[in-house]
């Protein structure tokens, strides 16, 4: 049992966090909350990849003369890290854009509550 927890706790926590993010996007009705849920979902997926790169007993992926390169078990896999740098940037830019849209919406309707917004859109 302890073995199982040790092996899979990270994945199960991340599945839980992914669902929490989706909960923020689906159930919460304030637009800023929706954006925060979006950020949580993206951060979760990024951490999922990072966990997939981890090796027991390995060091960070920076070349060290003491270890050499013959033994790949000495370094953590650098491929997911490089890809997730890109994904983090994507997450930041998407969040910034969502904030820009939120400001644009507030200028027009003076509220950020979704039912109120839909209500105001009904009569025009």
């Amino acid at each position, binding site marked *: 049992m302890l073995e199982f927890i040790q092996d899979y706790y990270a994945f199960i926590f991340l599945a839980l966090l992914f669902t929490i993010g989706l909960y923020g996007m689906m159930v919460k009705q304030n637009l800023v909350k929706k954006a925060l849920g979006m950020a949580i979902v993206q951060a979760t997926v990024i951490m999922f990849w990072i966990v997939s790169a981890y090796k027991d007993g390995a060091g*960070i992926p*920076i070349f060290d003369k003491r270890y050499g390169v013959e033994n790949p078990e000495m370094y953590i896999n650098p491929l997911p890290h490089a890809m997730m*740098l890109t994904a983090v*940037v994507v997450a930041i830019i998407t969040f*910034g854009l969502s*904030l*820009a849209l939120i*400001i644009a919406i507030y200028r027009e309707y003076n509220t950020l509550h979704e039912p109120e917004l839909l209500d105001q859109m009904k009569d025009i």
Partner: protein
Amino acid sequence: MSDKPLTEKIPRYCKGTGMMAPTDSPIVHIACRGISPFIFLIGLYVFFHGHYSPGGGFQGGVLMAATILLLRLSLGTGLSQVVMPASITLRLSAVGVLIFAGTGVITMIFGGDFLDYHFLPLPWLDPAYLRYYGILLIEVGVVLTVMTTLIAIYDDLLGY
């Protein structure tokens, strides 16, 4: 230095837009203006030392952007125009993209594939060092784009 209080020097377009008005506190001014060059220096270090330690174009660019954002927050958007005018940010970021894409196009013109640094026109270098300097070249583009765009998004959010 004139003897007018700082708030009177704000251009007209800064007034009435919430956060753009700067604070008048000299402590905040001196602290932020004093610390921002050092953060910029750390950004440059992170960028140029990225080949050897954690860091690289993106991290350095974000740190440099943080410098300007600190000035923007403390001095107000109007006064910090001297450091980085809002009108050139997006054009500088276009220049950064062009540096990156231009590196690829140059390698393509000299007979290689897109972004194949082996074909950079620097014949006196080893192939491995060609790649080393190619990485540095494109990271210049990355740093320029990231730094200016993060500032531009801040300015746009404020409606400046």
